[in-house]
């Protein structure tokens, strides 16, 4: 069988993903690292299933990045850009300028020509949108101050690639630019200014087509009401942009990003987004695999010290610039560290730009290959660095709580009967309710940004991880009566519950659960008061729906409550059998039948068995019986 057939390749990629991603997840490494490891294993350096050494295997895989950038572009509504304008321009602009200047200066000192140094500075100032966003999302850090800042910076970088691509031919002016091209493009025989013109022209044509061609086309397709045509259209658009960009020798990722931006205001935006989303994840995985596979181990073996030294040096420079900026933009220390850790890597656009600058003879092939390896290594390191941050750096900052206490020492001795862990959308509602009723609560939250915001509102919130013993103790767990656990991440919820049960067994636990599985696990842990976060609202919605359909309000309310009671009972029953898969399915089926029967009988009798007292048929029967006899 031909090892390079498309099907065989697909099989290898998919199999690698399916084997390594769950393994990585199990080991707590995250999906991105799983993909990268998979790439290393199947790549030319280890098993050699995909790609020959030195071969460009990024080519096809880049499509995942293309998709992602298309979607990111689509996120860029003018309102969002306007809202983030300070951080995008300020933070993003300064990051690119600062890092580029520092790196270019270093390159120049190390003996690179001036123009090449400039190009290197720009290339290496970029960070990996794909890996950083994916990792931040995975860890639930997107909403934090650092996450938002990182997003702004990444946005600026993505946009900054456009002028860079336009500038590079100018920097390379004088050098011949037709030799050694892997593919021919329309731009080949043009002078430098002509190339710049072509780049700008391609960008303009995407904008114009997006504006005036796509919407009418979408309308026609929408009218056919064939759902998959929409998906086809979405894919076609991305592919077409990619092809067009390749044709003029530009990055297809960049083109897709632009296309997305143009479509951000399209009325079909959400449809396009949801159609492409599933492809994005998989193709992005493919891209990560390719990054892993493209790490050239022979090259690394040749000069391991130089390469790892450069990786370390570059990341340190970038992190230093980021730290300074974070300070200037008033990020708290822990958020600033996360910000710097996350963006210290070098991004996928570097592959594109390196290839491009190699084409235009800005930098030579060997340096380009070495830098490709450096970029790939730095990308692979990012998830590890984030893991390091999560396990080592972040916990250190939660220790600061007692210090915070010292600062406002008058309140250390305040002993509140209630401790709330997690003050997000769920916990804050409970907390506000209790406050309104004159109950004092000690609130713990992990999001320092939110903590600061609440401080400004005059609400006392302690920053810190409630799954740490010292913190819970500092919060007064020994004297409190209730511990309300309303954290967003279940893993943390479980840790807090176990900790409280072990060290503060007198505390009554009220625990928020998101998934049914979470509820089961909490039941196993012996938690008596479990609150499935959406159950009450869903049922209220259901009751309102009943009412709108003509049922009386009181009937609807009671129906919802009856359903709730039944559902809670069902949950407990299911929990008992869930370890036995077969028995679980049987009882699940039984419960559903039971519930349906109950509802059916409800429809017939106008009300459930209870509540018979209100209008008993039996009285009428008896009275009629008496009259006859």
């Amino acid at each position: 069988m031909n090892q390079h057939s498309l099907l065989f390749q697909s099989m290898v990629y998919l199999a690698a993903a399916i084997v390594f991603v769950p393994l990585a997840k199990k080991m707590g490494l995250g999906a991105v690292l799983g993909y990268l490891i998979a790439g290393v294993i199947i790549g030319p350096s280890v098993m050699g299933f995909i790609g020959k050494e030195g071969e460009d295997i990024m080519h096809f895989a880049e499509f995942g990045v293309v998709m992602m950038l298309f979607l990111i572009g689509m996120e860029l509504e003018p309102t969002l850009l306007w809202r983030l304008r300070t951080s995008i321009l300020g933070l993003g602009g300064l990051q690119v300028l600062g890092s580029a200047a520092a790196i270019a200066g270093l390159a120049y000192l190390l003996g690179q020509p001036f123009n090449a140094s400039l190009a290197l500075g720009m290339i290496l100032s970029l960070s990996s949108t794909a890996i950083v966003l994916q990792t931040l999302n995975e860890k639930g850090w997107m909403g934090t101050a650092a996450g938002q800042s990182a997003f702004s910076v990444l946005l600026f970088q993505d946009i900054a690639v456009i002028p860079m691509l336009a500038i590079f031919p100018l920097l390379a002016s004088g050098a011949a630019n037709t030799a050694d091209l892997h593919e021919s493009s329309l731009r080949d025989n043009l002078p430098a200014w002509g190339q710049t013109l072509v780049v700008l022209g391609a960008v303009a044509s995407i904008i114009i087509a997006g504006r005036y061609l796509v919407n009418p086309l979408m309308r026609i397709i929408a009218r056919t009401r064939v759902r998959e045509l929409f998906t086809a259209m979405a894919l076609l658009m991305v592919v077409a942009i990619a092809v067009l960009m390749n044709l003029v020798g530009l990055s297809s990722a960049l083109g897709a990003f632009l296309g997305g931006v143009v479509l951000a205001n399209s009325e079909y935006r959400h449809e396009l987004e949801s159609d492409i989303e599933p492809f994005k994840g998989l193709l992005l995985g493919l891209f990560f695999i390719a990054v892993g596979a493209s790490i050239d181990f022979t090259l690394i073996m040749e000069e391991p010290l130089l390469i790892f030294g450069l990786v370390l040096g570059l990341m340190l420079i970038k992190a230093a610039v980021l730290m300074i900026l974070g300070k200037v933009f008033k990020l708290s220390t822990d958020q600033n560290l996360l910000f710097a850790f996350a963006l210290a890597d070098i991004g996928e656009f570097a592959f594109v730009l390196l290839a491009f600058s190699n084409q235009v003879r800005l930098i030579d092939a060997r340096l380009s290959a070495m830098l490709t390896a450096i970029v790939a290594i730095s990308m692979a390191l990012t998830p590890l660095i984030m893991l390091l941050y999560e396990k080592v750096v972040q916990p250190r900052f939660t220790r600061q709580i007692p210090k915070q206490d010292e600062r406002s020492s008058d309140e250390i001795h305040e002993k509140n009967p209630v401790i709330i862990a997690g003050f997000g959308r769920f916990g804050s509602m409970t907390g506000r309710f209790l406050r309104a009723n004159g109950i004092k609560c000690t609130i713990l939250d992990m999001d320092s940004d939110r903590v600061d915001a609440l401080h400004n509102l005059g609400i006392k919130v302690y920053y810190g991880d409630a799954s740490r013993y010292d913190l819970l103790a500092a919060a007064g767990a020994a004297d409190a009566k209730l511990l309300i656990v309303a954290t967003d991440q279940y893993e943390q919820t479980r840790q807090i519950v176990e900790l409280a049960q072990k060290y503060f067994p007198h505390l009554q636990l009220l625990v928020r659960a998101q998934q049914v599985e979470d509820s089961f696990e909490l039941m196993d842990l012996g938690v008596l008061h479990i609150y499935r976060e959406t159950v009450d609202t869903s049922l209220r919605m259901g009751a309102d729906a009943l009412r709108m359909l003509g049922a009386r309000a009181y009937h609807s309310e009671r129906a919802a409550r009856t359903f709730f009671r039944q559902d809670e009972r069902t949950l407990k029953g299911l929990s008992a059998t869930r370890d036995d898969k077969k028995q679980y399915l049987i009882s699940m089926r039984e419960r559903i039948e039971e519930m349906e029967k109950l509802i059916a009988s409800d429809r017939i009798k106008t009300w459930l068995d209870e509540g018979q007292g209100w209008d008993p048929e039996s009285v009428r029967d008896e009275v009629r019986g008496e009259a006859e006899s």
Partner: protein
Amino acid sequence: MARVLINFAHPALEKSRVHKQLLATIRGIKGITINDLYEWYPDLDIDVAREQQLLEKHDIILLQHPFYWYSAPAIIKQWLDLVLEHGWAYGHTGKALQGKYFGNVISAGSSERNYQPEGIHQYPVHQFLLPYSQTAALCNMQYAAPYVIYGVHRMDIEDIRTAAEQYRHMLELLRDDKIDPAALPRLTYMNEALQLPSQTRSI
């Protein structure tokens, strides 16, 4: 030993002076079950099966509540509507409560004088309680004379404590069969059971 069930209803017990004290005084006494309805059913969604089981297990059923608008708080009405089901509490086959005693324990703001033809309420408490005595009759129960604590608006904490102690004493006598419940329907007020000479009040 008689088993006494107190179905208690006060929608704002935290504000109550009298019932809070009464409840505190009688809570935890052996043989006397306090069933705090608003505590069990804050949403008025009464568990009929549970309530019927409780009734079946007791001999004397007392509704303890403030005398709101010449009647009881809303949940008592809800309870009557739902729990005393046809075929169970009344009707040809409804004999579950047969032979039990049923009565009200109420606190009234005004003095007894005001529940007279010349008083502001014009009618005696017994007339307002007619629905309860007839409910008992329909369910084949004996309606015991009401236990009434009059004039609670004017009572100070000492008066309330004394009233609570008397109430507890009365309940204990009932529980220990020192008062023959069959005598209760013949009284004007259940309070009088305490004044009965001991030989007439026991069997």
